[in-house]
């Protein structure tokens, strides 16, 4: 009796075992966890149009600020200097500068056929995708499939041009998995949306990563699409048609884990997960430098060389002390003027004296302003002045020291300062018509007195005024 019961139990157990082999139990797909598609750059592509008055032979490009069909980039907000653009459909141009919302310049001039109204402008954003997740179950020697959203028209989804409804396949993107315990990957297989084995679900590009190994539960997996150099990458979408400015366009991606022999178009994956990836315009970092003008005056030591002269006295920023003069002999002095401005119209430095060198302590007497060797120079006309004897007076000239300012007068020609006392206007001695960086010039003074000059201390005041041009 006891043996009979044992036999019955063994039989029942055998039946259960056999049936379990013949009718395996259903396994329900679990969720892969911590799934992410990290883009090397979340930057959108650019799909815009050339607008008149852009012309061939110029580097200045205007773009349309209204969208039309797939040309949804309507601002330069997504562009930055250095970007490589396709303009006109074939030729590449590099952005030199962004002028404003609808204008930029290129480093080379536009070729004929690239500057016509509504010609296309593309910027291809080619970020590497790094897909990471944790496995839910151990699927031995199977494969992962990553699905990236694509345009609904297969030809459009793989033409190397940014799309506005998904990523462009861009012909031959690379796919690779990183080996880890239980997963040794072979080279990934990329198939464009609508290609063999990549028809379901529709409108997704397929990337398959086959592996050998036992698999594992909770294993961290890293898969990639493309490379960091951007040479075998899919193209990020341009702004979608419904996009609101400064907001991201979000796309859904899928990760699936199949057993080895599964047909991914029809089979149910062992595990899967759905995630979101978003693209947005690049953030152009800008900094504002306040406009300003800077003016410096420095003294020059005696014995220095300036304006083809050797100076006889040491000057400071506030004085040119000629000291005691010998008759019919030149004494020379110099100062260094430096001007910088980031004002686009440049700057000007003017000079004016309050009066001639004057001795007001006793009876008024003056050292004359020079009229140069030939009695030809005045406050706005220069002339040569090389002889001290019989040409007494006070005058000046200038010489460029650095960064090429425009100066007047220039050595060896001299003139005298305009005089406020004589109601003369200030004279422009140094200027530049555009932005100037540390432009320097020596202003050199020369004085000569003759025997008719009454003894005494003579002085005047010279005012240098630096202003930005408008």
């Amino acid at each position, binding site marked *: 009796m006891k043996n009979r019961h044992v036999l019955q139990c063994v039989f029942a157990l055998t039946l259960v075992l056999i049936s379990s082999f013949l009718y395996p139990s259903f396994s329900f797909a679990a969720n892969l966890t911590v799934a992410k598609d990290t883009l090397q750059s979340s930057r959108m592509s650019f799909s815009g149009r050339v607008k008149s*008055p852009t*012309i061939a*032979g*110029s580097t*200045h490009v205007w773009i349309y600020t209204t969208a039309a069909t797939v040309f949804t980039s309507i601002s330069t907000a997504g562009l930055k200097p250095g970007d490589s653009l396709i303009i006109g459909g074939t030729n590449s141009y590099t952005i030199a500068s962004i002028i404003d919302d609808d204008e930029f310049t290129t480093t080379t001039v536009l070729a004929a056929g690239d500057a016509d109204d509504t010609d296309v402008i593309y910027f291809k954003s080619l970020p590497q995708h790094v897909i990471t997740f944790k496995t839910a179950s151990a699927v031995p020697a199977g494969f992962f499939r990553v699905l990236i959203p694509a345009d609904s028209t297969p030809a459009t989804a793989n033409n190397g041009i940014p799309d506005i409804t998904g990523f462009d396949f861009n012909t031959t993107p690379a796919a690779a998995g990183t080996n880890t315990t239980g997963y040794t990957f072979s080279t990934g297989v990329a198939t464009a949306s609508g290609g063999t084995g990549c028809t379901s679900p529709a409108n997704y590009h397929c990337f398959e990563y086959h592996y050998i190994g036992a698999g594992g539960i909770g294993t961290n997996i890293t898969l990639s699409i493309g490379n960091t150099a951007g040479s075998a990458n899919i193209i990020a979408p341009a702004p979608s048609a419904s996009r609101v400015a400064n907001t991201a366009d979000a796309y859904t991606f899928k990760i699936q884990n199949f057993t080895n022999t599964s047909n991914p178009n029809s089979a149910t994956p062992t595990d899967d997960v759905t995630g979101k990836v978003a693209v947005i315009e690049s953030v152009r970092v800008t900094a504002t430098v*306040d*406009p*300003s003008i*800077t*003016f*410096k*005056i420095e*003294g*020059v*030591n005696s*014995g*220095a*060389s*300036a304006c083809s002269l050797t100076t006889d*006295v040491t*000057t*400071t*920023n*506030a*004085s*040119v*002390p*000629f000291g*005691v*003069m010998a008759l019919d002999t030149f004494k020379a002095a110099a100062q*260094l003027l*430096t001007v910088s*401005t980031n004002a*686009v*119209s*440049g700057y000007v430095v*003017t000079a004016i004296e309050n009066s001639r*060198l004057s001795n007001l302590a006793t009876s008024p007497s003056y050292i004359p302003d020079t009229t140069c060797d030939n009695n030809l120079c005045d406050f706005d006309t220069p002339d040569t002045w090389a002889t001290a004897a019989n040409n007494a007076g006070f005058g000046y000239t200038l010489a460029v*020291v650095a960064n090429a300012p425009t100066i007047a007068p220039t050595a060896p020609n001299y003139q005298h300062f305009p005089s*406020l006392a004589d109601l003369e206007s*200030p004279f422009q001695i140094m*200027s530049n*018509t*555009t932005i100037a960086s540390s432009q320097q010039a*020596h202003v050199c003074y020369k*004085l000569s007195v003759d025997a008719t000059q009454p003894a005494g*201390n*003579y*002085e*005047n*005041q*010279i*005012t*240098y*005024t*630096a*202003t*930005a*041009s*408008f």
Partner: protein
Amino acid sequence: MTKKIFITTLCLITFAILLPKHVSAANYGMSISPPLLRVHIKPGKSITQVYKIENLSNNDKTLVAAIVPFTESDNFGNPVLNPKTTAPWLSYFSLANSEIKFNKPFSIPAGSSEQLILSLSVPETAPLKDIYVTLIVSTYENSLDQTFQGSALRATIGSNLLITISSQAYPDTILRIEGFYPAKGAVIRIGNLYFADSITPLKFTATVTNEGNFAAETKGVFRVVSGKNKPVYLEGILPVNIIAKSQRQLLNTNGDTFEFSPSLGNIGPHQLSLEIKTDNSNTTSTIDIIFFPLKLSLGLLISLLIIISIIKITSKTPEKST
């Protein structure tokens, strides 16, 4: 060895003598920001603008601020300033600083900065016109050395203010482009038509006159269009301000005169134009140039003459009698 040391020493002394030496003790260095302010204001309104004055000198500076009006400028946008000039509307301006006032000295320590808070209040009854002033900040000296012989220096730095008092946002502007010509020597002129070589770069000068009562800006383009009305070259005009009743030279965005370098394909009639657009008016000046391959033709002619000469000389050589 001694000779080498002597030569080296001599060189060092020579350099020391020849190189200019700047006194590094006291110097003057001043910066003002912003250097230019353009204001449209309605009568009865007020604005405030902060100016930053920076003392870049290595010593403290005593300065004085003032407002100087001007009415004229040169062709490059530089005001003709006369410190003695005055105007009744100077009373519109004041400094809102508690310590600093116009024409009163104030100090800025070395390496420090000070803010001048300039207030402009235009009365309701102010005439509708432009007013132009320069805010100047000058060095200030009140001591006089009786034994000093020479020139005392006064350094001034200024910021220009172009102010339009108008009840309209964009008052009428009347601009006229003048003197739009190619540089002399590069072209042949017959009537209003210019002939130029098709491979020689051409430079162009032009000025613009503001005949209106309000300042305007020179925004626009220099354009070259072929005979088939196809644009072949485009260059921006440097946007600058031109005050009322004044003239300015027009320059390209690099601050240079306009230049067009024709290529071999640019043969035949071309129209060159300067176009300026303001908020309420446009002005255009055009010139017609016919490009033809002058240099190329001359080269071919000379080559042809040389070849003909060689052939003639060769054919005149007497044959040797046998």
